[in-house]
C-alpha cells in the first residue's frame, strides 16, 4: 500500500529512459535514424518484458497499489499498458517515415511518442485524481506537439493550436472536477474517496456529482466523445498522417482506462448517475459521429467521426459498470489496432507527413494496391461491426453489457446508428473496389515495415474476430 514498487512503474520509467537516451544520443552522436530505431525497439522490448513481469506479479500477489496508494497495479492498468505498447510499436512503425522526414528533430518526435505512451500508461494506472491529471497532461502535451511537429504543413499548426487550446480547456475542466471532488470529500485518492463516499450518508452530494461530471467531461474530450469531439476531425486531418493513428488510439486507451478507474473505483456510489450520464454522451456520440461521418469526403475526417461513434459504443459498454469493463477493454484493444492500421493505410495512400486524405485518392485502390486496399477494406468492415471481425465481437459485447445494464434504448440507438454507419464504411470499400482508378493515380509504394503494420492489424482483427476466446479470456481477468 505504501511501499514504492518500481515494478509498478517500470514500463513508464523504461520509456522515459528510452526517450531521454534517444535525445541524448541524438545530441551527442547525431546518429543515423536506424540507431534511433534500435533504441526505440530496445525500449519497447524492455517495456514488454516489464509488462510481462507485471502480469506475473499480479498472478502471484494479486492486485494492489503502491506509491502511497496513488498507483494501481491491477489487471486493468496492465492491460491498458499492453494495449498501449502495441499501439506504440505499431504507431512508431507507421510514423517512421514521417519521423525520419523530420531530420534533426527526429529524436524529439520519437521521444515524444515514447513519453506520450508513458503518460497514457500512467493515466490508466493512476489511483489519484491529481496523478491522473498529471499523466493526462504528459500524454496530451506530447500529442499537441506531435500534431504540429511537421513544419510548413498547411494545416499542422492549425491542428496543433486547436488541439492545444481545447485540450487546455478540457484539462481545466477535468482538474476542476478533481477540485470539487476534493472539496466534497477532502480526498483525491480514488480508493479512499470511493470508500469515503460509500461509508457515510451524504445528504447533498451535488458537489460530488458536479465534480464527477466534470471529470467525465474532461476524459470524454480526450476520447473524442460527442459533443466534446469537435477537435478530433480537424486534428486528425491536419496532423501528419503517420502519427494520427497513434494519437487517436493512445488517448482513447489511456482515457478509458482512467475513466474506468475513476468511475468504478472512485464513484461507484453514484453509479446510477454516471451511467445515465455516460448513456447520454454515448447516444450523442454514436448518433452525431455517424451522421457527420456520412458527410465526409476526407478519409481522415471520416475516421475521426467514426472514432466519435466508436467512443460512443465504448461508453455504451461502460454504462453497465464493472461487468462492462471486459467488453470495453476488448473493444478498446481491438479498435485501437484497427485505428492504427487504418491510419497506416491512410499514410500509405496520401503520404506519411501529409495532411488530409481526400476520398478520391482511394478510387480503384483495390486495383492499384491490393494489399493496402484489402487491409483497409477488412478494417472498415471490422469497424462497421460485421461478424468474423473483432469489430463485431466488440460491439456485440458492449451492446450485451448495456442491454444487461438496462440501457436498452441506447442499444437500439447504437444498432440503428451502426446500420447508418455501414454507409460510410462501405463508401470507402466501394471506392476502392467498385470504382475504377483514375488515369493519373499511381500505385502507392509500401515499405516492408508498412506492409507488416497493415498485415498485422488486419490479422489481429480477423484472427481475434474469428477466435476471440483467448483475448476475451485474458481481458476478462482485467475487469477487476
Amino acid at each position: 500500500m505504501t511501499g514504492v514498487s518500481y515494478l509498478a512503474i517500470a514500463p513508464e520509467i523504461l520509456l522515459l529512459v528510452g526517450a531521454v537516451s534517444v535525445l541524448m544520443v541524438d545530441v551527442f552522436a547525431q546518429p543515423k535514424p536506424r540507431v534511433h530505431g534500435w533504441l526505440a525497439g530496445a525500449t519497447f522490448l524492455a517495456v514488454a518484458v516489464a509488462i510481462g513481469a507485471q502480469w506475473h506479479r499480479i498472478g502471484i500477489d494479486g492486485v494492489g497499489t503502491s506509491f502511497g496508494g496513488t498507483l494501481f497495479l491491477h489487471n486493468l492498468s496492465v492491460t491498458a499498458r499492453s494495449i498501449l505498447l502495441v499501439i506504440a510499436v505499431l504507431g512508431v512503425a507507421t510514423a517512421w517515415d514521417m519521423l525520419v522526414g523530420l531530420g534533426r528533430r527526429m529524436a524529439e518526435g520519437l521521444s515524444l511518442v515514447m513519453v506520450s505512451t508513458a503518460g497514457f500508461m500512467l493515466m490508466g494506472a493512476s489511483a489519484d485524481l491529481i496523478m491522473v491529471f498529471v499523466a493526462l497532461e504528459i500524454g496530451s502535451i506530447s500529442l499537441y506537439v506531435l500534431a504540429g511537429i511537421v513544419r510548413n504543413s498547411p494545416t499542422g499548426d492549425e491542428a496543433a493550436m486547436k488541439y492545444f487550446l481545447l485540450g487546455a480547456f478540457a484539462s481545466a475542466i477535468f482538474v476542476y472536477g478533481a477540485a470539487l471532488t476534493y472539496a466534497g470529500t477532502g480526498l483525491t485518492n480514488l480508493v479512499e474517496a470511493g470508500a469515503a463516499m460509500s461509508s457515510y450518508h451524504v445528504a447533498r452530494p451535488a458537489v460530488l456529482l458536479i465534480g464527477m461530471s466534470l471529470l467525465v467531461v474532461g476524459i470524454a474530450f480526450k476520447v473524442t466523445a460527442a459533443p466534446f469531439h469537435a477537435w478530433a476531425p480537424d486534428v486528425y486531418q491536419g496532423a501528419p498522417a503517420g502519427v494520427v493513428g497513434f494519437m487517436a488510439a493512445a488517448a482513447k486507451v489511456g482515457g478509458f482506462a482512467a475513466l474506468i478507474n475513476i468511475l468504478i473505483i472512485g464513484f461507484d456510489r453514484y453509479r446510477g448517475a454516471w451511467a445515465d450520464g455516460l448513456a447520454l454522451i454515448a447516444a450523442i456520440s454514436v448518433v452525431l459521429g455517424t451522421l457527420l461521418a456520412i458527410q465526409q469526403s476526407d478519409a481522415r475526417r471520416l475516421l475521426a467521426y467514426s472514432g466519435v461513434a466508436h467512443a460512443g459504443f465504448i461508453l455504451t459498454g461502460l454504462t453497465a459498470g464493472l461487468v462492462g469493463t471486459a467488453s470495453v477493454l476488448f473493444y478498446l484493444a481491438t479498435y485501437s489496432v484497427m485505428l492504427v492500421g487504418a491510419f497506416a493505410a491512410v499514410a500509405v495512400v496520401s503520404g506519411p507527413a501529409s495532411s488530409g486524405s481526400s476520398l478520391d485518392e482511394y478510387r480503384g485502390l483495390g486495383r492499384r494496391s491490393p494489399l493496402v486496399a484489402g487491409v483497409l477494406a477488412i478494417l472498415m468492415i471490422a469497424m462497421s461491426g460485421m461478424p468474423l471481425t473483432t469489430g463485431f465481437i466488440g460491439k456485440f459485447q458492449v451492446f450485451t453489457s448495456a442491454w444487461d445494464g438496462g440501457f436498452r434504448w441506447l442499444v437500439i440507438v447504437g444498432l440503428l446508428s451502426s446500420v447508418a454507419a455501414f454507409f460510410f464504411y462501405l463508401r470507402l470499400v466501394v471506392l476502392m473496389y467498385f470504382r475504377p482508378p483514375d488515369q493519373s493515380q499511381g500505385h502507392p509504394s509500401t515499405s516492408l515495415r508498412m506492409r507488416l503494420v497493415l498485415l498485422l492489424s488486419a490479422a489481429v482483427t480477423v484472427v481475434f474476430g474469428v477466435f476471440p476466446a483467448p483475448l476475451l479470456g485474458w481481458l476478462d481477468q482485467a475487469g477487476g
Partner: protein
Amino acid sequence: MVDYLWIVIALPLGMAVFNHFFGSRIGEPRAAGPAILAVLGAFGYAAVASLDFFASEHASEEAVTVVHLFDWIPGLGAGAELLWDPLSATMTLVVTGVGALIHIYAVGYMHGDPRFSRFFTYLNLFIASMLILVLANNFALLFVGWELVGLCSYLLISFWYTKPSAASAGKKAFVVNRIGDFGFMVALMVVFTSFGTLSYTQVLHEPGEIIGASTATAIGLLLLVGAVGKSAQIPLYVWLPDAMEGPTPVSALIHAATMVTAGVYMVARTGAIYGLSDIAGGVVATVGAVTALFAATIAIGQRDIKRVLAYSTISQLGYMFMAVGIAGYVAGLFHLVTHAVFKALLFLGAGSVIHAMDGEQDMNKMGGLRAKMPITHLTMVVATLSIAGIPPLAGFWSKDEILAVLFAKGGYFIALWAVGLVTALLTAFYMARQYFLVFSGAPRWKDGVQPHESPRIMTGPLVVLGVLTVLVGFVNTPFRLGFEHFLAPAFEGVYLAHAPDDGFLLVALAVVSVAAGVVGIAIAYLLYNRAPEETRRRLLGRVSRPFTAWEHGYRVDELYGRLIVRPGLRMAVWNAEAVDNRTIDRLVVGIGRAVWWMGRRLRPLQSGFVRSYGALLAVGTVIVVAWIVVRGL
C-alpha cells in the same frame, strides 16, 4: 389388366418425351408413327380393360377399381391413384379413340410443317394429360390433368407462334382458364377443409354424412367456376373462339371433343356433391342454358368456318351443362360422347376445307365445294344433320334425351327446356348456313385457289367418324338404355334424373325437337341457298343490328377489355409507378435521405473555428453536468 392401367397414360406420355428429344431427327412422317401407335395402344388397352364392365353386370363394387401407383402428396390424401370405373372408361375411350383418329388426320394436315414432330409431341402430351384428368382418383390429380391439358391447349393454340394472334390466343386461353382454376382451387380448399382429404374414395362416398347443403352448394358453385373456365361457358367462354388460331386438328381434339368437356366430366364425377345441393345444380343448368342460347346466336353471325364451330361447341357444351346440372348425368355424358364424335368430324371436315382452300377460313370466300371434295362433303352433311338433331343420327338421340330429362324435371326447368329447344332451332340454322355457304352455291374463291379433296390420310378419319356419327347414337336410345346401364356403377348412390317414362310424351318431345331442327335447316336453306344474293342482303339488313352484334360476339371481348383488362393494367401501372416507385421506395430512400440531411444540418457544428468548438464543449459540459446532477439527486 386394370392393375397396369398406368400404361394407358405412360404410352402417350412416353412417346411425347421420345418425340420431344428425337422427333425432329426421325423426320416428318415417321415421327407421327409412334405417336399414333401410342394413342391406339392406349385405346386398345382401355377397350380391353373396359370389357370387364360388361362382364360384371351389376356388381358395382367390382366395377370400380382404384389403382394405387405411388404416394404423391400424402398430406392432402392425394396419391398417384387411378380410378377405373365406367365413367372414366368412357372418357378414356372417347379421348383415345377420337384422339387416335385426329392423330392420323393430323399427319396429313400438318404435312410440311417444320415443327411436325413437335406437334405430335404436344398431341401425345395432351392425350396423356387428359387421361390423367379422367383417370384421377382424387381432386389433386384431377387438377394435374386439368392444368396439363390447359398447358397443351396453350402450346397447341400458339403452335404457330410467329403469328401474334396465335400467341396471344394461347395466352388468353391459359389465363382465362386460370380464372376458372382459381374457383376450382377454392373449391378444393373447401373440400379439403371439410373432408380432410382430396381423395374421391372418401369425399364422394356418402358426402352427405360429413357436409351439409350449404357447404355442398359452396363446393358445387366453386367447382362450377372451374368448369365454366375449362368448358368455355359464360362468362369465361371468350378464350375458345380465339383458340381457333391453333391448327384444326387441335381444335377438333382439344377444343371440341375432349378437353372442353372436362367441366362436364367433373360435374358428373362430383355428382355426389351436387346431389346435396339443388341450388348448385340449378345454377349449373342455368349457366348451361344461357350459354347454349347465347353462343348459338353468336354462331349465326360468324363468317369464319372454325369460329362457327367454336361457338357451336360452346353452345353444345351448354347443353351438357344443362343436363348434368339437373343430375341428368347419363344424358350429359351421352351428349358428350356423341358431340365428341360429330364435332370432331365437323372440325376435321372444316380443316379439310381449309386445307383445300389454302388456309382460307372465311366462308364468304368459299362456296360450291360439294363437287370438289365429295368425301368431305358427305361426312360434313352427316355431321351437320347430326348436330341439327335429325334422327337417327347420334346428335338426335343425345340432344333429345337432354331435352326430355329437362322436361321431365318440370317446374323451372321447363323454361330451360324451351331455351334448349330454341337453341336447337338456332343450331340447325347456323349449321345449315355453314353448310350452304361452304358447299353449295357459286364459288367465291380467291384467285389462284384450287380446291381439291384432301389426301386419304385425312379423309380416312372423316369417314370413320362419319360412320360413328351414324352409329354411336344407338348405344342409348329410349328403347335400349345401354349407356345408362353401363354407367350405373359409377353413379352408385348418386341421384340420377331420367327422361319421362311416358312413351307418348317422349315421342312428342322428340317430334318437337326434330321439328325445331328441320325448321332451322329450312330457314337456312331458304336464306342461303334459294334466296338470291340481294334478297338475302336486304333481309339481313333488316336485322342488321342483332346480326352485327352476333357477328362481333356481342362485343364481349371489348367489354372485358374495357371492364377488366384495361383497368387492371392501369391499376398495375399505377401500383408499379405511384405506389411502388413513388411511395414505398421513396419512403425507403427518404429515410436514407433524411439521415443524410440530418448530417448535412449538423455540419455547421464543425465550423472550423476553435472558439465555436469551445462553445460546443461548454454547452456539452453544462448539459452533462445538469443531466448527471438531475439523475443523481
